């Protein structure tokens, strides 16, 4: 049995050799380090996916531009979508949960630390396998490079007849490998949350972030295996001559759509629920009030998880389902707006009457509320079958889901980065830079994706690499692309802030935000064992109880 020394400070024994540090990170099973690696990888892929999007917007800035060939454009939108969903959203969310769940429930690590490391490395190598397609995707046929079938890989485009070479195989295998890791992580989270909470932390005393991650993990367990199954069937089609999705040979292209979207729509909730979790922790702290309606927030989370598994066919309104099916899925899709609306009202109700501090995390959380609301409202439009028929596969849809996943998720992630960065690194991020970044992103984001709604309304289809000048789309595309420039400025400030704060940021102390959950009771950064002594809690806000012993929370719960 070896002895682990606590992390030495920078001045303790001189600089640690690079190889030693690399070895320490590669072999780590510490949930905080693994979480950090997830997030760093997610940010790297965010830059890559952002560059891919920028290239596409460059091409579409004006009609008839030839920055990209049609084939390159197809690969870029495929890789952008796949990367953002699987290699940006998922790792950042799994990484955040990795860091926060044990700290919030007073545990020393996840239930299965080595499995956790295995999951991370599967994600890491899976993502490399996908990007290896740029080099290996041509296969023996000398055709194709990266996948070009969209992030949803609709059949029959993915059949061997239409997708020569191995690019689609890399898409299948890369996501399949990474998916094994995500599934294992979900099981790990569930075991940790159900079995490793500190004394006194009953289910109804858990922080809402932990509740939401529990539901999120259950959705991952239910939604990812059907995708894996569908991918194996597709691999059989492509490599062994099966015909599961080959309509001309008795297969069904719609089967792929059903299987894919049975994963694909819950995936949206898998991504956005952790975003909800972040703002649910941040808004009360910066409003100086307890979260409004804790039990209802839990119920709404469970309801969202349940309903999200029954809405997938709203992605298929234009394939010719029966009116009965369309109506059922229209109803279920609208139904998911109810628990989501409850959450929205509860966040606002938490802020009402509070002594709100608009520090950077709260700015982002408020930005999330406004922009996710808009994305949610256009989601209700799209849930209406006749409306969907009009704008399906147009830029209106692209604008809608970017309002949800960028305006919602990315803003929530940025709120979380600014909020928990001090805990993870021990240093504060720069508030001034953070606020400049916020306003640049708000302006750039709304110019880019607001304008997409209009070009979609005017009939511009998505996934076109260029367009004629007589369609009335010129101005809106120019505006969309100009917004990207503003966003790039915002993200450049973010990168600068991250690097600067990591080395030169103000010392954070243990509890810089005067917060209430357990992670703020330990040092910043926390030691390998998280807590010197096992915490015991009596309410949902254990640090509030310690800070205000004359008015503890447990009296009211």
């Amino acid at each position, binding site marked *: 049995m070896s*002895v682990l020394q606590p992390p030495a400070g920078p001045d303790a024994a001189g600089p640690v050799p690079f190889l030693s540090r690399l070895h*320490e990170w590669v072999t780590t099973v510490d949930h905080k380090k693994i979480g950090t690696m997830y997030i760093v990888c997610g940010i790297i892929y965010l830059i890559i996916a952002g560059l891919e999007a920028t290239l596409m917007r460059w091409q579409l800035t004006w009609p008839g531009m030839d920055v990209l060939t049609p084939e390159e454009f197809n690969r870029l939108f495929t890789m952008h979508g796949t990367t953002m969903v699987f290699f940006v959203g998922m790792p950042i969310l799994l990484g955040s949960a990795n860091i926060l769940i044990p700290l919030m429930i007073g545990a020393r690590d996840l239930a299965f630390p080595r*499995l956790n490391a295995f999951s991370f490395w599967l994600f890491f190598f899976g993502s490399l396998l996908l990007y290896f397609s740029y080099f290996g995707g041509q296969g023996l046929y000398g055709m194709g490079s990266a996948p070009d079938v969209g992030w949803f890989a609709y059949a029959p485009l993915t059949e061997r007849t239409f997708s020569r070479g191995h690019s689609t195989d890399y898409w299948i295998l890369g996501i399949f490998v990474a998916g094994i890791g995500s599934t294992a992580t979900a099981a790990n989270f569930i075991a940790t949350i159900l079995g490793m909470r500190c004394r006194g932390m009953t289910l109804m005393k858990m922080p809402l972030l932990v509740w939401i991650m529990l539901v999120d993990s259950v959705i991952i367990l239910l939604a990812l295996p059907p995708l894996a199954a569908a991918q194996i069937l597709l691999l059989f089609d492509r490599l062994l001559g099966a015909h599961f999705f080959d309509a001309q040979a008795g297969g069904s292209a719609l089967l792929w759509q059903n299987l894919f979207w049975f994963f694909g729509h819950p995936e949206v909730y898998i991504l956005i629920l952790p975003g909800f979790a972040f703002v649910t922790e941040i808004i009360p702290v910066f409003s100086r009030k*307890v979260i409004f309606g804790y039990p209802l927030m839990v119920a709404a989370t469970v309801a969202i998880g349940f309903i999200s598994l029954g809405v997938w066919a709203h992605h298929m309104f234009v394939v010719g389902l029966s009116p009965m099916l369309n109506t059922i899925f229209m109803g279920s899709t609208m139904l998911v707006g109810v628990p989501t609306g409850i959450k929205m009202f509860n966040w606002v109700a938490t802020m*009402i009457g509070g002594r709100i501090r608009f520090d950077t995390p709260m700015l982002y959380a408020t930005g999330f509320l406004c922009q996710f609301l808009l994305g949610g409202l256009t989601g209700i439009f799209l849930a209406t079958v006749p409306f969907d028929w009009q704008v399906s596969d147009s830029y209106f849809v692209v604008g809608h889901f970017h309002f949800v996943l960028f305006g919602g998720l990315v803003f929530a992630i940025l709120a979380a980065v600014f909020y928990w960065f001090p805990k993870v690194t021990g240093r504060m991020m720069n508030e001034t830079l953070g606020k400049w970044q916020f306003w640049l992103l708000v302006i750039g984001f709304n110019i880019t994706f607001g304008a997409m709604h209009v070009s979609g309304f005017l009939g511009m289809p998505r996934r076109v690499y260029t367009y004629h000048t007589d369609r009335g789309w010129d101005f809106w595309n120019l505006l969309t692309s100009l917004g990207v420039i503003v966003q790039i400025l915002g993200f450049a400030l973010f990168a600068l802030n991250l690097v600067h704060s990591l080395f030169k940021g103000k010392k954070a102390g243990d509890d810089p935000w005067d917060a209430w959950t357990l992670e703020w009771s330990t040092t910043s950064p926390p*030691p390998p064992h998280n807590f010197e002594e*096992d915490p015991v809690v009596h309410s949902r806000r254990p*640090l509030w109880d310690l800070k205000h012993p004359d*008015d503890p929370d447990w009296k009211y719960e």
Partner: protein
Amino acid sequence: MSTTPPNEKSHGIELPQPTAGPMICAFGLTLMAAGIVTNWIVAVAGFATFVAGAINWFRNANPDSLEMLATPAEEKPTPIVPRPGSVDHLVGDATHRARLPMEIHRYRDGMIGGAIGGVVMAIFAVVWGLISHGSLWYAVNLLAGTLLSGVTDMSMEELRAFHAEGLVVGIIIQLVMSIAVGLLYGVILPIIPRGTLLFAAVIVPLIWSGLTWATISVINPALGAHIEWLAFIASQVAFGITTGWWIIRCGKISTMQNWHYLDRFGFETQGKGGGS
């Protein structure tokens, strides 16, 4: 929150050992997958790597070498200092659990106020139609154009004429919209901290007019082609003043948020504490 002494052995805290096993396993599995689209040799190498990683992993998981000991960190968490007496209670309630607003308007009052405001607005619009176009039915027909597609193609003469279908549809639209907006007024007004009537009479009508301006060509092309914005805004303000005034004069009732559950269900019992 309190803490209990560590239940670990006295000489430190047990943590799992770092190991390269999981990474090697994951790499092997990925190579096996890559072998499917490259060469079977890659898959075999992947399998061998996977097995090597698994052996490393399982040997590491041997109970004898399962854990390492973390010595307590030199840096200790800053003790949390109690700050008694520093809690500001929300106005009107003795607990920091108060859910705002403490008082709300009855939904019924909002709906009735909306209906009354709708009538005033309709009178305003009809009088405007009579003065500016010499017809009682002009404004009604334009409003009906929201649902009746034929109105878009009507001439001015037809717009001035009476159409029974237009009257019925116009009344339904006006009634439903007025009651719905009145209900929203009833819900929103209690959470406006001050200037409630100003909010109801000016701010909301201006926002609504802006929204209408932006969407009218899609929602009601007929109205969009003939609308006179000054009169439209004035009619909205008339609605806002009337509805806001009605709701405010009806007063508020206490919400049930902070009541005891028995009170909420209407039981009359002793020893339950709290209540309205």
